[in-house]
């Protein structure tokens, strides 16, 4: 009897752990979600020295890449970033429009704990958030954490801030009026 109870507990635990990990959204699904029916090519954002310093201050660790890929159309951009939660990278997809977050999704979660961050009850808090200001690289509204997923929550906040910052650096952050004004 005791053995059966132990087996049931172990199976339940392993199912709970495996339920946390997984690939939930593919690149094509993210693009379709951000730009329905559109076939967009990748855009490239080249990062200069001062921008890299800003990115490193957002992430609180070094950022080695010289360029970042994204999709963009009108005033909307979509970004894919990876950030370590506790030990393994979490792949995030972030859709930004008009300086605020439209949606943030977890495309792949590899940690054994903290996967609750992918559920809409949590990600909904990021919708509509922007940066505090040009000088202050942090979100303009607080986000409630989840017990047991502190590091994953922290990683998501960093990536949301990073996507908003990178969005500012693209031509898609400007209004159509401003873009047209730049055309000679």
């Amino acid at each position, binding site marked *: 009897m005791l053995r059966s109870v132990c087996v049931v507990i172990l199976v339940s635990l392993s199912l709970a752990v495996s339920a946390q990990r997984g690939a939930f959204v593919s690149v094509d699904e993210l693009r379709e979600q951000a730009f329905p029916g559109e076939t967009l090519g*990748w855009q490239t954002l080249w990062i200069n020295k001062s921008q890299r310093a800003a990115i490193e201050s957002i992430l609180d660790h070094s950022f*080695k890449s010289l*360029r970042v890929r994204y999709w963009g159309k009108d005033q909307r951009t979509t970004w*894919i970033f990876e950030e370590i939660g506790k030990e393994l990278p979490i792949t995030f997809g972030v859709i930004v429009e008009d300086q605020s977050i439209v949606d943030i999704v977890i495309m792949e979660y590899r940690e054994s704990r903290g996967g609750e961050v992918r559920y809409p009850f949590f990600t909904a808090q990021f919708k509509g958030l922007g940066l505090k200001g040009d000088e202050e690289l942090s979100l303009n509204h607080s986000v409630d954490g989840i017990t047991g997923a502190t590091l994953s929550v922290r990683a998501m906040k960093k990536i949301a801030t990073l996507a908003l910052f990178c969005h500012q650096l693209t031509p898609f952050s400007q209004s159509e009026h401003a873009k047209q004004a730049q055309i000679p």
Partner: protein
Amino acid sequence: MPSKPKSPKSRLQKTRLFFWRWHRRIGVSAALVVVLASFTGILLNHTSELELGKSPVRQDWLLEYYGVELPALINFSAGEQWVSGDDNQYLYLDGHQFAYCNGRLIGVAETDGLLVAACTEELILMTRAGEVVERLGSTYGLPVPLAAVGSCGAALCLRSQEKNWVADFQQLVWQPTEQITTWSTPVAMPSALRELVLDEQLGSDLSWERVVQDLHSGRILGQWGVWVVDLAALFLVFLSLSGFFLWYQQYRRRR
């Protein structure tokens, strides 16, 4: 016939002779260990000034003796440059560490003026100065695990899942291809380059202070070495006692 009782003088002479003989023998036997222990003792007394604790051991044979495993290195040429990888998944450009790669390094190729280091799980695009431009993994649709990388005409081709793929780095598209590809293959590592990589990679686990300490205590030869040094210490005790005895005898005779 009963033996004649020995005079105190002859007994003293015999003891003196015994001490002389053994003082010499033990002195010669202990000499090597004493010299070694003295020399290493001096080094340990000045370990801070000599920075022995911060000086890593680089000698392959000594690291091997201590059981510190040398990393397995794989090396590819990229024009006049070398890209190497170790089994801890660190990459080196001309012997200098520049990135961590997800997976084992399987080849190097060139595209659009950039070097592409291919590991089993990702591609690292970098400048010839060793700056990472971009990392591309399965998130960007890269067919993994990669088995090989090479040039197919002007493009870069990959081998994965028993198929050849041509890479479009502008749009990050990986298309199956039948193009003939010249695959990147590992080449022997020049010894100077190997030294440079090992110099960056090795030694943090073992300092010269530890080696000198082990020489001093005899632990470098295991438990037997410790016994040898213990024996040499006992010999030193004997030498000091026998030396004093012999000196005292001579001193009394002169008086």
